[in-house]
């Protein structure tokens, strides 16, 4: 296909915190400013801006893309906001990619922000309307239901236990101890997860990522410009996205087919035939611990039902054969929805450049994958980056 090569040349992020003093604009500025400084570009060298953020109802600011735009460096620039629920953080860089790949722009600033703390009494209130207003909402659902229903189905189909799944929370929260922006990096045991408060069985308190405020940003450039900006461009090798039916009670929740379709699209573009051998680092979406396993299977990085074994045997540990969420993931770093997805892209950027500090995975990884998931459990978004 006739598109141009696109590189990530800079990255920045804020700390992820339960509630920030900074406004959404200010968080966006801090992440964007850091990303620009990291590649020594100034705002006048940015030709386009894309911005990702999840429901307006979190911030309580309608059209928040437009409201926050100046903090994302979009003053008098071509600007777009994208929103595909939880998948936004990995979809927004895809949108940035086509801004540059198409030849329209040589540079694009990609910013994702979420400020969930304004939403009272609980950000879940903003989520209730994702359920069908007539056939589901009258039953008084809460968001945990759909995760619990999916997790239970996944466990049931493969005979997976809650302990198997708890390993992921243990791993990611520990990885996050090494992330300077992490909200809840800590050492926990499988027993700690098992004994934490049952919220919506099988989901327990420590199976879940926290509510967070934060922002991330990356700078994209065309091949020619990227090579003038940095010695270490990180290239987009593949992108993919896909949407399942909104009739979520009409499909088998044990397997995220939309993630598989998105992954196949990205692999084809990247020329990847054997993803298990050709992808060195994975940052799958992990708002709940079972989701990491679910997504590894959807990404074809292991057989259906076998992801817990990879975790148990240490394959997915930071020093394992296929490190998964070396950042600490949403479970450890935090989950400001859209920003959390872009955090995964930032992590790949730093890892592939060998700049991840204490989190650096061994063996000079060449290629990494980030994935997010969302809407009514429908969307899969995948980016493959390589150096």
């Amino acid at each position: 296909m006739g598109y141009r090569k696109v590189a990530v040349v800079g990255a920045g992020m804020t700390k992820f915190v339960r509630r920030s003093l900074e406004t959404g604009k200010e968080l966006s500025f801090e992440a964007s400013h850091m990303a620009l400084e990291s590649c020594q570009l100034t705002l006048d060298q940015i030709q386009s801006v894309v911005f990702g953020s999840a429901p307006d109802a979190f911030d309580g600011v309608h059209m928040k893309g437009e409201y926050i735009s100046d903090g994302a460096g979009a003053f008098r620039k071509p600007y777009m906001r994208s929103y595909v629920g939880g998948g936004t953080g990995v979809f927004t860089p895809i949108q940035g990619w086509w801004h540059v790949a198409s030849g329209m722009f040589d540079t694009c600033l990609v910013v994702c922000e979420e400020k969930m703390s304004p939403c009272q009494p609980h950000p879940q209130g903003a989520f209730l309307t994702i359920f069908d207003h007539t056939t589901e909402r009258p039953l008084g659902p809460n968001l945990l239901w759909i995760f619990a229903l999916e997790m239970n189905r996944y466990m049931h189909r493969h005979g997976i236990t809650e302990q198997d799944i708890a390993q992921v929370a243990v791993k990611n929260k520990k990885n996050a101890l090494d992330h300077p922006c992490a909200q809840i990096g800590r050492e926990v045991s499988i027993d700690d997860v098992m004994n934490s408060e049952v919220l919506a069985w099988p989901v327990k308190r420590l199976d879940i990522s926290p509510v967070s405020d934060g922002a991330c940003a990356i700078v994209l450039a065309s091949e020619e410009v990227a090579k003038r900006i940095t010695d270490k461009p990180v290239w987009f090798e593949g992108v993919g996205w896909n949407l399942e039916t909104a009739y979520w009670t009409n499909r088998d929740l044990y397997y995220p087919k939309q993630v598989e379709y998105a992954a196949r699209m990205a692999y084809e573009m990247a020329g990847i035939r054997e993803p298990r051998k050709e992808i060195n680092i994975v940052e799958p979406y992990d708002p709940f611990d079972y989701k990491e396993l679910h997504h590894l299977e959807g990404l074809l990085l292991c057989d259906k039902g076998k992801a817990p074994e990879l975790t148990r045997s240490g394959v997915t540990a930071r020093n394992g054969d296929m490190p998964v969420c070396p950042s600490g993931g949403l479970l450890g770093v935090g989950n400001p929805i859209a920003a959390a997805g872009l955090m995964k892209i930032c992590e790949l950027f730093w890892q592939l450049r060998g700049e991840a500090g204490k989190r650096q995975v061994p063996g000079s990884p060449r290629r990494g994958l980030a994935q997010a998931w969302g809407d009514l459990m429908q969307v899969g978004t995948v980016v493959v980056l390589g150096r």
Partner: protein
Amino acid sequence: MGILEKVADNRETKAWYGDIPVQHLYTAGVAGERFLSEIRDNGKILGTLCEKCNFVYVPPMIYCERCFARLTEWVPVSHKGVVESFTVGYIDMDGKPLPEPRVMAVINLDGATSSLVHFLEEIEPDDITFGMEVEAVFRPKGERKGSILDISHFRPVG
């Protein structure tokens, strides 16, 4: 056969009623914190200056949206300014008549480059003119809460 149906009588349509049960608690942010605290505690209106762009932001921002520099220079601006535009509101949010018409004005404070929006009172709507000089009326110190409403309104100078 399709199963498209025509609704002959609107009363036959069924709707389901609900809301989105959220309320919001916003921080004022790094810039807003200082801006509003200064109004509350000292009755002063501050802006931030971008020297490069020669621009004073009121309300202040921690960055210049034009050049993206971090702004650290805080400058007091005048309580007085001029009316750049205004509108007279006769109805509330739900379309009900207001007991008294209410004037919202865009006001450019002396010393500021950007303008802010606030109430304009103590004047008949018919007497308002563009470029008219107005001044901030602060609430008594004990009643200020760190809100843009600590300035209760603007009024004509003199």
